[in-house]
């Protein structure tokens, strides 16, 4: 019975969201606000149960001596909430600074080692070598150079530079077109999922329950 109630609530909320296609209305705004609230509640719960308890609380209460170093992230985390006390709000910046520095450190290496170097490397091609056909290589080389010239603003885009720059715009448009096509496919897929729920899952589960 609980599953039956669950699917009908889900169906009602789906229809509330779809009602926006006709026009904005209170049912849509109710479902939208409910989704935002439930998502936040779910996130807090899942972080507490899956991260805070097994990775912080249990180790500290289980074997404090061996896990005393966990007090550092605990204090840094609690320190973030000092921003709600105006007199000592500046203390929160210390935690924020540690957090930002950590992720800058991770990201810097990640971007250079894992993105810039391999991506530049895979663009430096022998025109007739590699795993791709010479035509693919040629398109890649011309495309990259043309797009780079389009984004090179230190010289005026006239004459030959202007022509290559316009070619760069064509390559960019092709890229945007491919991305847009994929986006349409993605959005339609989500609609298919909801329609499948309304017309197949809902009917099946209701039929099984009755």
């Amino acid at each position, binding site marked *: 019975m609980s599953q039956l109630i669950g699917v009908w609530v889900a169906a009602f909320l789906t229809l509330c969201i779809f009602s926006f*296609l*006709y026009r904005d209305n209170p049912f849509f705004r109710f479902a939208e606000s409910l989704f935002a609230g439930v*998502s936040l509640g*779910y*996130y807090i719960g*899942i*972080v507490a149960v*899956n*991260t805070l308890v*097994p*990775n912080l609380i*249990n*180790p500290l209460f289980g074997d404090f001596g061996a896990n005393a170093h966990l007090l550092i992230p605990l204090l840094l985390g609690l320190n973030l909430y000092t921003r709600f006390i105006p007199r000592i709000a500046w203390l929160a910046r210390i935690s924020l600074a540690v957090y930002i520095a*950590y*992720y800058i450190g*991770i*990201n810097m*290496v*990640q*971007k250079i*080692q*894992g*993105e810039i170097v*391999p*991506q530049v*490397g*895979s663009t430096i091609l022998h025109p007739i070598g590699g795993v*791709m056909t010479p035509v693919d290589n040629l398109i890649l080389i011309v495309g990259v150079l043309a797009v780079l010239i389009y984004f090179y603003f230190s010289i005026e885009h006239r004459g030959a530079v202007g022509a290559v720059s316009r070619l760069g715009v064509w390559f960019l448009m092709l*890229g945007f077109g*491919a*991305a847009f096509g*994929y*986006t*349409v*496919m*993605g*959005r*339609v*897929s*989500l*609609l*298919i*999922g*909801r*329609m*499948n729920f309304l*017309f*197949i*899952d809902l009917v*099946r589960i209701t039929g099984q329950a009755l």
Partner: protein
Amino acid sequence: MKLERLVNIDRRIVYLCIAVGTTLPLLLPIGLPVSSTPPVRSLFEKVESLGPEDVVLLSFDYGPTTAPENTPMAEAILRHCFTRGIKVVVIALFPIGGVTMAGEVLANITPEYPQLQEGVDYAFLGYKDGAQAAMKQMGVAFVNVFPVDNGRRPLGEIPLMQRVVNYDDVDLIVTLSTNVIAEWWANLVNAQFGTPVAVGATAVSAPKYYAFLDSGQMIGLLGGLKGASEYERLVIDRYPHFARLYDRPGVYTAIKGMDAQTVDHAIIMAFILFGNTVHFLIRRRDRRAGLRDA
């Protein structure tokens, strides 16, 4: 004046056409053919090359909002792995629903393989916050990130996790992703630890991953519902007994979804062609009218 009315069709008529174009193929499947592309075949062949001694790390980096795209991928890959006896370690790094999706998919698939033992053939480690930090630390030891599995069992007591210490013991990482997390698997884990990474991405994020595919940082890519349907087709073609499973009425699969997808695309293209034709007709009419007035 009549032409102006045609370019200003109420958008709700377009919505209605799309709704009908989506619903009818779901209720009355057409069975359109699905052909596979190299990025999908590449992942399929990689899984085919693995066996019972190998380990796949399957990361659920998506939530319910993109389940119609990602869940069919997850189910097809899990079935493929379990059929070949490959050991699977399941984790979730997406906060809003990743662990719930992983639990649902495992609950759907594992009953099809009654011989499977949790902890021996597969392990479900659950969700962890802070994806980048978690990925980096798993390179040292999984136990540092997941001291217990999703069922609160210490990792040391799980037979599979006794031999899977870090990425060195993983033969393939597959991320089913809705956002930037897939990129991190490639530019952090693959770059720093060298473990092969394959991605099952939503269609929205798939285009940018082709660059990673070309550079060899990803060994396979399933792009959206189309990628999922290709993988389902490859699995069915190689293991025909799955055909009965995927053909069951009332069961949502990517192959069935692609029928609706194709009809919807045809409707969208028809509207684009119609709108453009009317636009050019209006322009020609106005030009002629301008010449006549002159």
